[in-house]
């Protein structure tokens, strides 16, 4: 599963650490998701869409 988290993060000027703190995960987990090494759970994906104010399909694609 591919994602555009890095793009949305830079659009919102949020660092990996800031995003990790808001989502209550580690910075390394955000890094793993951005590099497509880990697909987040539905709960985490929905939290991200809430933070970036976008739809799930804007952030993730198969």
């Amino acid at each position, binding site marked *: 599963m591919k994602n555009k988290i890095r793009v949305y993060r830079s659009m919102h000027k949020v660092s990996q650490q800031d995003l990790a703190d808001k989502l*209550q*995960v580690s910075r*390394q*987990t955000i890094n*793993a998701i951005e590099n497509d090494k880990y697909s987040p759970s539905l709960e985490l994906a929905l939290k991200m869409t809430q933070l970036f104010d976008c739809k799930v399909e804007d952030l993730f694609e198969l």
Partner: protein
Amino acid sequence: MTLLFHHRYKKVSRILFYFCFLFGFVYLIFLEGNETLEEWFTFKVPAFISKDFFSKLEIGWHWVDTMFMDEALSVFLVLSGIFAGFSKEKHEDELIDKMRNDSLRWSLFINYGILLLTLLGVYGAIYLSFMFAQLFLILLLFNLIFDIKLYRHYKSGRNEE
């Protein structure tokens, strides 16, 4: 993620686990049968079931003389191994939980692979030693694989922002 121990147990149990493993290995290779150690650590302990080669089976609470070193080491190994593997990380999240599950799965596959090889290729009295070693091998493999995964995880993307 709920069935985990507090993070405070992680460090001490990990140190204790690897120390017990190393000491157990040294003990089995070099110190088993050492008379001084046997003198110090042999005493009466309560037992529920006991049977020696030349004695009859005893069931029900009674006292037996035993060299307690093996039992003490085994208890420390099991408890410290479980606490080391199943204590929360400082920032426990879903990726850490996935790594823990993957490590457990790999250790189970490897351990039972070795068990199959042991069943089909090891015969005689040494078979019992292999079976005894495999009681603890699964814990060792689990903790080793999990620690390697954690090390790689914490090392990943150090320079990224």
